[in-house]
């Protein structure tokens, strides 16, 4: 067990707390999701729903492999991986994106007779890609706000 003794003076404690805040900010700054990451995830999510709508599910595996590669590349490139803290944004993403994904497939099937399977699949793919990209922008903003809140008394 570690030795728990020698309490520092208040000034030392304040200095230590400042050092902690600086390192937490540095860690979170490194973990800010890059813009290419949000764009890649949006494109791949769009491709996934478009392939489902076009009834080409046999290609899903390639999209999922690309998704894994993007996730691994992100952590390799930044050298850090963030703790997954359940946030309101994650909740919203799950609540919005899951029904949207299946809803868009149904919509594409309904419109495929009118505009053709290809165009219907492409349209729903674009809609989901925009939704995912928008959420990624919100996540980025939330992340930057979290870094700004460290030390201001409203941080975690």
């Amino acid at each position: 067990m570690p030795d728990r003794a020698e309490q520092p003076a208040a000034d030392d404690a304040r200095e230590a707390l400042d050092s902690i805040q600086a390192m937490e900010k540095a860690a979170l700054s490194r973990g800010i999701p890059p813009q290419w990451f949000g764009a890649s995830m949006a494109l791949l999510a769009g491709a996934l729903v478009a392939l489902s709508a076009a009834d080409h599910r046999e290609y899903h595996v390639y999209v999922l492999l690309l998704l894994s590669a993007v996730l691994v590349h992100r952590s390799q490139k930044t050298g850090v991986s963030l703790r997954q803290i359940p946030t309101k944004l994650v909740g919203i993403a799950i609540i919005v994106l899951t029904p949207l994904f299946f809803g868009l497939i149904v919509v594409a099937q309904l419109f495929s007779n009118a505009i053709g399977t290809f165009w219907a699949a492409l349209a729903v793919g674009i809609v989901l890609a925009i939704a995912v990209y928008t959420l990624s922008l919100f996540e980025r903003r939330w992340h930057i706000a979290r870094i700004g809140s460290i030390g201001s008394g409203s941080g975690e």
Partner: protein
Amino acid sequence: MKRKGFDTIIHAPNRLQICAFLAPLQEAEFKVLRQELDVSDSVLSKHIRQLEEAGYIEQRKSTVDGRQRTWVSLTSAGRTAFVQHVEELKRLVLFPSE
């Protein structure tokens, strides 16, 4: 004077910085930690070993493009000890005479 949350293993400046950097993360690469702390490999290794011996940190090796990379993360015991340590530091700042 003994204090419940104060931890001398964590409180050493470099080890405090290591724990603070790892706290919001799932894991970080050794190279990144070295850059952030601006210390040599041997100094960082020494501090990581001390934290590892206390059960506060664990390491994971991975190979990417034929090069070995080391990833470091806080254990749950390390996370708890760090949180308690930070609480104790805050208490010392707020109530220095206690």
